[in-house]
């Protein structure tokens, strides 16, 4: 991860902007939406180790003076699915991407039951906030100035 950030720093123009966009460090919620009303059915138990490692990598390049922190924001992101097979695909994608996801058969069964019992048009909705970190590239000269101003030289 740090190598990728160093490469991003290399290919960015002076004063360029790095945007780190990824799911926030919370488990996603799964539910059914019908007639605009959301009913939560469970929470994904996805491991958050990769997200913690990403935070550490960002902190590392900030400390190394490659970037300076800009602003940080968080906003809602929904994934909307029409069928149980879409939801199964969504779960399978975690495994395809190498995430060590524990079995979620219980949640799939719960979604299946909710789809069977709810009347009318319904959707499966997975909710989870996205985190966006905006960083500004620091050049070597900037890094020098920053360290001098902080009394580190």
């Amino acid at each position, binding site marked *: *991860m740090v*190598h*990728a*950030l160093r*490469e*991003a720093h*290399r*290919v*960015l*123009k*002076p004063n*360029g*902007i*790095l*945007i*780190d*966009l*990824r*799911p926030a460090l919370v488990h996603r919620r799964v539910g059914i939406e019908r007639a605009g009303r959301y009913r939560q059915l469970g929470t994904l138990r996805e491991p958050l180790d990769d997200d913690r490692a*990403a935070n550490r*990598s*960002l902190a590392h390049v900030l400390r190394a003076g490659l970037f300076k922190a800009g602003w940080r*924001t968080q*906003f*809602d*992101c*929904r*994934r*909307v*699915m*029409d*069928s149980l097979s*879409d939801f199964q*695909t*969504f779960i399978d994608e975690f495994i395809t991407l190498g995430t060590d996801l524990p079995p979620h058969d219980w949640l799939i069964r719960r979604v299946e039951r909710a789809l069977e019992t709810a009347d009318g048009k319904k959707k499966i909705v997975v909710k989870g906030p*996205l985190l*966006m970190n*905006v960083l500004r590239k620091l050049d070597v000269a900037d890094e020098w100035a920053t360290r001098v101003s902080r009394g580190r030289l």
Partner: protein
Amino acid sequence: MAIRVDPEQNEVRALERVTNWRGKRVIELGCGDGRLTLRLARMGAFVSAIDPDAKLIRTARRRLPKRFARRIRYHVGKAEHLDHANESFELAVLAWSL
């Protein structure tokens, strides 16, 4: 039916707050099937989009609308070893890939 990610476009609104993307040269690391890449191109950016998964890049190329063919270039590659020259881009986006 496909999975619809962020139909409310909250992601686009957040990205629009960062900068004016029109005409900007952007490198997107971890573009996957190009979902976010298309959003960046719609905002006016020229995007070099990279992902290590050749299958996802093939999907992204297949889904690329003609109107964005000159704005988007997809490449198979790793974020740790970019083939691009120094100081080539105004923005770098790590899309769910850090």
